[in-house]
């Protein structure tokens, strides 16, 4: 018998020595609802550095291009000659004489259609490739080859197929932006934890329920990474495609300005394109952050 009755006088817990606890009064926390100084200093610390850099760049540019033999216009000349474009983005004087904001909107519309289609088809194909080993073996080599084709290389083919410039441009957007969506979705689906799949199996979720309730939310961070790369690529592609197809987009505007030697206009258009691309990227990132809140946390 190895079990002895527990009767051990050596083990004894003593009550902890008690001492009257002191009450320490803390000063009440000063609560400031609105502190103008703090807000101003915070704004300054975020806005000041980029502002300084921009001013410096403009000064360097002005100095570099102010000699009479300079081939590019300095910022002062851009401001003077393209003032209409800068100050009035929304004028409308007939079919080919419209403000840059209108042109950007027309380009954005094409991007919206092309990228929207790419997002839907890309997520569906990515889910298929991520879920099925056979689909991956069959489709992955094709994707890997096609995704390296530069956007404009698709243009002649799509012009031949669609016989119209606008759907061709949209197709170029689609085919450019779909690859990162497919590839990232597939990776996300492949990385769904086995436990989530087990939960789905125990609940006997069918394919559609699994896709909507488990797969898409679980892969959402990956999907949005793909969408963010995709929207950047499609904005790159639309400008190039419009240069060749013509029409009223921002890309064609640059080509037109080059043909009539309006260099200041081109510089303003570049600024528009850059700002718009930045906004698109941030928009997709913000939507992604909103949709995937809590998903990445364990």
């Amino acid at each position, binding site marked *: 018998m190895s*079990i002895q009755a*527990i009767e051990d006088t050596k083990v004894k817990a003593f009550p902890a020595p008690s001492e009257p606890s002191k009450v320490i009064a803390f000063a009440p926390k000063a609560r400031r609802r609105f502190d103008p100084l703090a807000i101003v200093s915070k704004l300054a610390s975020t806005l000041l550095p980029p502002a300084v850099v921009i001013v410096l760049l403009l000064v360097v540019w002005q100095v570099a291009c102010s000699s009479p033999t300079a081939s590019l216009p300095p910022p002062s000349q851009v401001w003077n000659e393209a003032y209409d474009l800068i100050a009035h983005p929304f004028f409308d004087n007939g079919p080919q004489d419209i403000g840059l904001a209108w042109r950007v909107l027309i380009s954005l519309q094409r991007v919206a259609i092309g990228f929207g289609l790419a997002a839907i088809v890309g997520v569906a194909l990515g889910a298929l490739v991520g879920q099925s080993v056979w689909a991956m073996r069959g489709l992955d080599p094709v994707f890997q080859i096609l995704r390296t084709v530069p956007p404009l290389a698709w243009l002649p083919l799509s012009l031949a197929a669609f016989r119209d410039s606008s759907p061709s441009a949209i197709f170029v957007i689609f085919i450019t932006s779909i690859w990162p969506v497919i590839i990232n979705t597939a990776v996300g689906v492949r990385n769904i*934890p086995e*436990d989530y799949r087990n*939960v789905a199996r*125990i609940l*006997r979720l069918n394919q559609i329920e699994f896709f909507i309730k488990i797969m898409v939310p679980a892969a959402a961070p990956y999907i949005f990474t793909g969408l963010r790369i995709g929207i950047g690529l499609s904005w790159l592609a639309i400008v190039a495609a419009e240069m060749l197809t013509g029409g009223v987009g921002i890309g064609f505007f640059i080509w037109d300005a080059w043909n009539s030697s309006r260099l200041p206009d081109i510089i303003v258009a570049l600024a528009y394109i850059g700002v718009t691309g930045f906004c698109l990227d941030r928009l997709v990132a913000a939507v992604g952050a909103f949709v995937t809140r809590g998903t990445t946390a364990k």
Partner: protein
Amino acid sequence: MTAYLKLDHIDKSFARGGQVSEVLKDIRLTIDKGEFVSIIGHSGCGKSTLLNLIAGLTKVSAGAVLLEDKEVDSPGPERAVVFQNHSLLPWLTVYENINLAVSKVFGSTKTRAERHDWIMRNLDLVQMAHARDKRPAEISGGMKQRVGIARALAMEPKILLLDEPFGALDALTRAHLQDAVMDIHSRLGSTTIMITHDVDEAVLLSDRIVMMTNGPAATVGEVLAVPLARPRRRVELSSDRTFLRCREAVLKFLYERHRFVEAAE
């Protein structure tokens, strides 16, 4: 009387690249309705594999799992699993996590209001109703496990399968949850199978303890009945003769007769 759950001569082997490794060999076990059975063994002995077989998440190589004399070979909500790492979906709130299960299992038999009441009843059972709108990331490990238990109970399973449910928790939280599980078991009388590697936990909670031999080809070594009256209180049991004897029997099995050999392949 036929058994509620019967594990009938189960073998399980995994084939990996030409090599076949035998994990479980000739597992025979019957479990009655309302019984609380623990399966204990050293790590790597295949106890989780055994639970997955009962859950239907993996298929048996030979033999059969019979629930009420019907063979089960695919997962389903009547054999709900509480996973070791809770497996709550992080993008859903506590309520939505349970609702996913309830609306799937009772979508056609209960009305919306009835389903809501049922979800809240299960949350109350694990004392988590206050956190219904929190996401898993916002609650502690013990609370997540409580929600995991509530989700499993909400499926109204015939058998509740617990896969080392308290393994990742600290000792005090673990004790709280063990009490909660005992309380739920006494109230609902749910047939429960729990995988564990904690001897005290096994003795405290179980009606019977199934001790597994070491792998490869692990099997049921001994089955120990725990003749302790319920409700059981851990403080009183800590010096109870029967409790200590049961504990000793399990310890002897694990550390004398079937000592774990490191890297035994």
